[in-house]
């Protein structure tokens, strides 16, 4: 579906990503995981041609992204960005209806079919009651649901989520991601989630790409990727993945940071660094 080959990117001579290979399959939920500043968001932007790669190719169904228009890309890929502050008084419906933009010609007005898709997207995300409210009066979490609704209204093949849990209350985190998982199941939607939220990624992703030192450090199911050793190296934490009988699923247990443990082990002034 979405294929990445030999992808590299530099920011002002500083390498951000080096030689990334990745094959995202139709209908899967894949998590791009790594510590802050490891280049996850850059990778997401490259997947959508918001940035152009230094070298390497990103292709969708075999078409190199650099050979197709932004409009054609937007017909297939929807993005839910990390920062979603909108300062203008567009109504929620206006914003969700923007999801139909890639399908409209310059002077074409939204058809009743378009508006039906918009209404449906608002229903799915539970924001119908806000339809006429101005977006700039809403909380970060509500705004995120509006943007997710817009992405759904885009009827994409692939949806890219950048740190989807950053602005959300715990309850809405699950709501938003449950919805995305449902869509993925029902409509074979491919989902790419960028995050540093370990428990969330483990709960929702079929596969995980672990980014470390600008490269793909590990790739596979959460169980394969999140080994204690990998988590120690990439996140500097002591953690294990265990079966949780309450959740009836595997989950990550974080025991502490490796740097703290080292200091404690030095037998010295660990009191100065009390957490």
């Amino acid at each position, binding site marked *: 579906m979405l294929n990445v080959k030999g992808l590299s990117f530099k920011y002002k001579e500083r390498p951000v990503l080096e030689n990334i290979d990745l094959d995202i399959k139709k209908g899967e939920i894949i998590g791009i995981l790594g510590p802050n500043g490891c280049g996850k968001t850059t990778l997401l932007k490259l997947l959508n041609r918001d940035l152009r790669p230094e070298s390497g190719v990103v292709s969708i169904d075999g078409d190199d992204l650099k050979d197709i228009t*932004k409009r054609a890309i937007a017909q297939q890929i929807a993005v839910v960005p990390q920062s979603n502050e909108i300062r203008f*008084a*567009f109504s929620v419906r206006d914003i969700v209806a*923007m999801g139909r933009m890639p399908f409209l010609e310059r002077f074409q007005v939204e058809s009743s079919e378009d508006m039906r898709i918009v209404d449906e997207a608002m229903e799915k995300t539970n924001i119908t009651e806000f339809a*006429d409210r101005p977006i700039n009066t809403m909380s970060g979490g509500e705004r995120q649901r509006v943007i997710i609704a817009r992405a759904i209204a885009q009827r994409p093949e692939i949806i890219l989520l950048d740190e989807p849990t950053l602005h959300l209350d715990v309850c809405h985190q699950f709501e938003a991601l449950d919805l995305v998982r449902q869509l993925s199941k029902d409509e074979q939607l491919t989902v790419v989630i960028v995050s540093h939220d370990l428990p969330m990624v483990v709960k929702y992703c079929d596969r995980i790409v672990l980014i470390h030192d600008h490269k793909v450090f590990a790739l596979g199911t959460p169980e394969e990727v999140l080994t204690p050793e990998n988590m120690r190296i990439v996140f500097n934490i002591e953690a294990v993945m265990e079966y949780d009988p309450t959740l009836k699923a595997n989950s990550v247990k974080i025991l502490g940071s490796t740097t703290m443990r080292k200091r404690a082990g030095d037998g010295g002034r660990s009191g100065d660094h009390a957490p």
Partner: protein
Amino acid sequence: MRRRRTAVVFVALFLILFAFIVLDLTQAFIPLTFSEAFWALFGVGSDTNVYIVQNTNMPRVVMAIFVGAGLGIAGAVMQALFRNPMASPYILGLSSGASLGAAIGLTFTVAWIPSLLLVPLLSFITCMATLFLVYSISHVGGRVPTETLLLAGIAVGSFLSAIVSLLTYMAGDELQDIVYWTMGNLTDVEWENILIVAPLIAAGCMIMISCSRDLNAMMLGGNHAQDLGVEVAKVRVQLLIASALVTAAAVAFVGVIGFVGLVVPHILRIVMGPDNRALLPASLLGGAAFLMMCDYISRVITAQSIGILPIGIVTSLIGAPYFIYLLRRRKSEVGWD
């Protein structure tokens, strides 16, 4: 609800525009009655009345409609594009930029280009140059902060105005004309001027309206517009060229008329909301109505005394206090920096 409000706004703007067109048509050294003006429009009545209405008042009204419409919509576009409520062709120095080209065109004659074409052409060139100059001065790390944008616009505008003054000073004989023109002047409009202005402004307005949906997405900031398939760089260039085109065409024939592009879209945005698909046509209509009103005021105030007050003075007398008011209440307003 918003849709109904939009409809009400359009009807109200139409009525205001129509009312001031009618009032303006009666204005003359000795004002006409409504019926005299109406019949004169169709060639009925005294020769003087017919001449005044058909060859003096009508061209002036048509020019005011096109110039007002162009400046109104250009202001709305620039405010959306820079995501800044105080952007307008006048504040950003575009009008001064265009006036430099026009002044050059009026001062020097080129043998093989008629002045009627040379003036708007030079206006457009200097207007575009000013736009890119102001933009590149105020562009800081991917953003265009309000303060630098306004300061750059005002500084560049003042500098260019000074050069225009220098040119008028050197021009000598034609001084009177050019001074009058730099204050914005709708008197002495001829039909042949409109033949050039109308298509240029109409083309600019069409380009802007065709981009209104893209402009909505661009107002969201970040990568939203790109992610929705908008070729942001391309649309931005189209809109800037269209703004410069409209401003240059207006300035080349009627001089510098400030604040139309600031006041009109700003008030309309408060009433109608930010959706450019409604706001741009409304600003077009509102700009025409506002300029028509200002022209009427300028004629009523001064009809019997020293001659007609330049319309740029009237728009500034109304617009500048509004600009100061905006500066004061900017913080409390939702939606802008």
